[in-house]
């Protein structure tokens, strides 16, 4: 693929990437790490949802509202409702400013909302919720939230940010099983990549890897991948070498050879024919004798033939 072809196809796939993540509905799980953070991609997805005209509810546990809204223009910010769990999530200040009931109630309130229209719920972050709530409670709430409502106007899309290193494999896999799409962020040589797993209903899971970068206004920019060292290409004119040519041994047996092999009696298998052959001296055996002429100093002591007993 030439670079220009790659870019052309890539632009389509960038649009498809965000759109296909959002079109699937249900839950999209973003798995990030310390080195490759995922909040920017979360914000890019939020921006895309808002541009579709949807209202976006953010359960913000890790950053302040100002920091989260940074980079969004006013049209997007007007569609964003920020539920602040950053300032006082555990109600330490007791000033009544904290969200009543804490994080769990805030999550459940989103399930029970009655306003019409499809909405997107962004959880920043699932890790914070998982550290403060039991895993089963959180999964039940998520399942209730992202369950596909048959009524098209009330669809809820859930975007969850998960910091992989903070949790054991059990909770991560549990959350992963609830998600219709899973994006694992990594990268190489300063270039971020997203490995996406789609779980479409009644289809096999499909994988896709996309190199990208996120611009300051949270739109996605395609990248072709990091500049790698040119790999040495195999010479197309050299025919592949067949290793089975010119062998000094047989790889396969013919039918006759196989029959002969199968009918061969193994030396230590004692059958009745063998027993008879041993007991009855055959015609060949009469010709084998041992002739022994002892030396002058040979001691033919039968009781000590090796002469090593110290008697």
């Amino acid at each position, binding site marked *: 693929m030439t670079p220009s072809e790659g870019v052309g196809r890539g632009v389509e796939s960038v649009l498809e990437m965000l759109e296909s993540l959002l079109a699937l509905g249900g839950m999209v799980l973003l798995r990030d790490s310390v080195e490759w*953070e995922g909040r920017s991609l979360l914000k890019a997805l939020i921006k895309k949802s808002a541009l579709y005209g949807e209202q976006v509810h953010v359960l913000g546990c890790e950053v*302040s509202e100002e920091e989260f809204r940074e980079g969004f223009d006013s049209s997007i910010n007007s569609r964003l409702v920020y539920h602040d769990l950053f300032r006082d999530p555990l109600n330490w200040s007791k000033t009544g400013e904290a969200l009543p009931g804490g994080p769990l109630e805030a999550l459940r309130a989103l399930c029970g909302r009655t306003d019409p229209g499809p909405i997107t719920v962004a959880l920043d972050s699932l890790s914070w919720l998982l550290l403060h709530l039991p895993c089963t409670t959180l999964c039940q709430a998520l399942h209730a939230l992202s369950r596909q409502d048959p009524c098209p106007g009330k669809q809820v899309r859930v975007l969850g940010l998960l910091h992989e290193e903070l949790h054991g494999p059990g909770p991560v896999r549990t959350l992963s099983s609830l998600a219709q799409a899973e994006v694992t962020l990594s990268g190489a040589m300063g270039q971020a990549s997203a490995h996406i797993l789609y779980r479409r209903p009644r289809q096999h899971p499909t994988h896709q890897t996309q190199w990208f970068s996120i611009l300051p206004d949270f739109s996605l920019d395609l990248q072709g991948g990091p500049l790698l060292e040119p790999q040495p290409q195999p010479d197309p004119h050299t025919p592949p070498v067949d290793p089975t040519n010119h062998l000094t041994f047989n790889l396969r047996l013919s039918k006759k050879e196989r029959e002969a092999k199968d009918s061969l009696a193994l030396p230590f298998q004692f059958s009745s024919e063998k027993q008879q052959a041993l007991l009855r001296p055959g015609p060949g055996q009469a010709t084998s004798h041992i002739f022994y002429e002892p030396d002058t100093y040979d001691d033919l002591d039968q009781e000590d033939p090796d002469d090593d007993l110290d008697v």
Partner: protein
Amino acid sequence: MHHFLSFYLKANCKVCFVALIQSFSHYNIVGQKLGVSLTAARERRQLVFLEGLKSAVDIFFRPQEEPHPLQFLREANTRNLQPLYEFVREALKPTDEEEAAWRCPVLLVDDLSVLLSLGVGAVAVLDFIHYCRATVCWERKGNIVALVHDSGDAEDEENDILLNGLSHQSHLILRAEGLATGFCKDVHGQLKILWRRPSQPTAPRDRSLTYQYKIQDKSVSFFAKGMSPAVL
């Protein structure tokens, strides 16, 4: 840690130092080498110093009703570090006469890993730092510098959760480690710098830098990997 302490004091910031590892005199001696006097800073109320080693002993001789920042040492079930957070919040609360005197408030913690050894859970420490961030960084537009030890090969799950959780909350990570090739007389270690502020448009590819360093008596010299004067 010593560098940041002297740096912020010289920059005229109000500093709250939660020192759990060493005594006040230790930091004072090193501070003097770097050109600041902690005693003077404490007297002029620029520095609020929680001497963990001394307070930890005091707590057992006080009446139990009085709240103490290191109260968790007394409680069997340490649920949270709220008293410690309240101490920090009080220490950096702006008072009228100080409003003009000092620049942004700064919280330094040396170090957080020891809290795990004292029986506090990793999530409780993360919550403490979360609340400090909300107050010091967001409300008061200040900074926090915290030291955590990496358990390295020893598999310490709680420490790993603490380290990774803090890393995710941080905007800048400085990771000091020994050289991969072992001990060296002229190069004492390597410092990796990772910026995690994603919305900055400048130099997205310079997110991570690595320098090697040599510690001298009153300063540290940095050089690029492989460029130590001893090697060239």
